[in-house]
């Protein structure tokens, strides 16, 4: 006998780092429909951005997300710079890449740890976060804060990386890279982990494109889509290579993230090597003109869009944030339809949900 039940998954659930509710319509153990219910942490951030000064908004944009905060301020600054036609020094572009990539490493390690926690591998979770701590130390030593770096400003960056700090970063990265293979083997080659991940939450390529999936979710399905290829900031000079998966299941998403860790390590090293000398910021005067811009950047979770519209005063006319998790939610609903209830935590964690960015 088929019985239909509705199970509310979340907003408080052991695997979910942030509150989102998924209404799961079940037929026995199978999910036949999933619906999201968000709005638990809507902060009205877009409204406050219109009331504040455009320079104060840099600090506001930085606080949209607590994991990839630097990327948000970088994207905002790039948008405003495009709007006001400011050319920033080359050294600032390289410094932005370095901090953005450290953020990517720490974000990927965080979500891989949470994934390990979601399928019950607590030891791996702790060890991944121990490695992450070293990345956080790099950020703390170079910028003065662990996550909310506060170094990005309109017209450049605020702090410089001295040769001593550069040596320190290279040493730390080497130590991180030495620890990675062992951990990644237990994440990718372990029999029980593979059983848990392979073939779960499959998102075919055409569906991923249609549903507008971004970031590692789209790349794991075989879409070649990484904004770093367009060469914003200094990525054009850094021989960036995109990581693409095939199967589009949870295992491939994990694999894409693991490989991106190594890409990011390489990018930081190349950036430190090729970083030119020179000033790190230019002075910006005036206010954003009455024009609009759609600033885009590749975040650890995917493509981040800021729509910025000025009106000639120091306040912005409109500031809209589209975060990658918002774009990945339809893909999540598609993956959940037809899967087993026991797979829901793994699938939900594998899109790397960041709900407080989603709701702003």
């Amino acid at each position, binding site marked *: 006998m088929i019985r239909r039940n509705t199970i509310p998954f979340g907003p408080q659930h052991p695997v979910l780092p942030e509150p989102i509710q998924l209404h799961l319509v079940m037929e026995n153990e199978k999910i036949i429909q999933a*619906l*999201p219910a*968000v*709005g638990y942490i*809507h902060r*009205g951030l*877009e*409204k*406050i951005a219109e*009331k504040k000064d455009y320079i104060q908004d840099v600090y506001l944009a930085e606080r949209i997300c607590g994991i990839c905060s630097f990327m948000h301020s970088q994207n905002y600054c790039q948008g405003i710079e*495009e*709007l006001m036609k400011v050319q920033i020094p080359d050294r600032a572009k390289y410094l932005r890449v370095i901090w953005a990539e450290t953020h990517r490493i720490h974000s990927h390690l965080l979500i891989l740890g949470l994934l390990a926690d979601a399928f019950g591998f607590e030891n791996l979770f702790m060890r991944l976060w121990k490695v992450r701590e070293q990345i956080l130390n790099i950020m703390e030593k170079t910028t003065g804060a662990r996550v909310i770096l506060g170094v990005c400003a309109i017209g450049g960056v605020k702090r410089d990386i001295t040769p001593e700090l550069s040596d320190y970063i290279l040493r730390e990265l080497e130590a991180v890279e030495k620890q990675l293979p062992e951990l990644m083997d237990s994440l990718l080659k372990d029999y029980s982990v593979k059983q848990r991940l392979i073939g779960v939450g499959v998102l075919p390529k055409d569906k991923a*494109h*249609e*549903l*507008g999936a971004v970031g590692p979710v789209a790349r794991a399905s075989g879409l070649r889509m990484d*904004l770093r*290829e*367009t060469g914003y900031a200094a990525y054009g000079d850094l021989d960036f290579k995109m990581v693409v998966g095939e199967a589009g299941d949870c295992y491939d998403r994990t694999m894409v993230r693991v490989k991106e860790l190594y890409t990011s390590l390489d990018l930081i090293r190349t950036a430190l090597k090729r970083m030119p000398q020179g000033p790190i910021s230019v002075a910006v005067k005036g206010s954003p003109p009455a*024009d*609009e*811009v*759609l600033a*885009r950047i590749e975040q650890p979770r995917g*493509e981040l*869009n800021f*729509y910025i*519209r000025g009106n000639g005063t120091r306040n912005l*006319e*409109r500031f*809209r944030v*589209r975060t990658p998790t*918002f*774009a990945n*939610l*339809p893909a999540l609903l598609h993956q959940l339809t037809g899967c087993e209830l026991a797979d829901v935590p793994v699938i939900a964690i594998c899109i790397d949900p960041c709900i407080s960015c989603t*709701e702003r």
Partner: protein
Amino acid sequence: MLNHVSEITLDQISTEVWKLKQDGHRFVTMTCCDRGETHDILYHFDKNYELKHLRVALPKGTALPSISALFFAALLVENEMKDLMGVQVSGMAIDFQGRFMLAEGAPVAPLNKSIPGIGIQIQDKTPSAPEGTVKS
């Protein structure tokens, strides 16, 4: 400086979006902007890192036809627009009835310019009793 913006009217939306979908574009997002008499609605599409935009000037009070039948991904952002900007969207695949982002008792369409916003402190010049650590 948005390049490739085409201004369209309300009844052209579905045909234009359908053309872009046939062309292999990916739906990025929609943006709604309060312009006084109208809502400025922008559709953003992407193909090979090239953005294309459609702009519709929607008079306030008019319903916007939903494109969620063509792009399911538009469903969330349309619901969000309905909640935050008060845009009526007709024919959505799933309608959250204005309870997508906001809860009961929340202000109606808070992102419109006419709503002042709650709890936002702007620099006021009226002196008030200082709180916190005073140094003088």
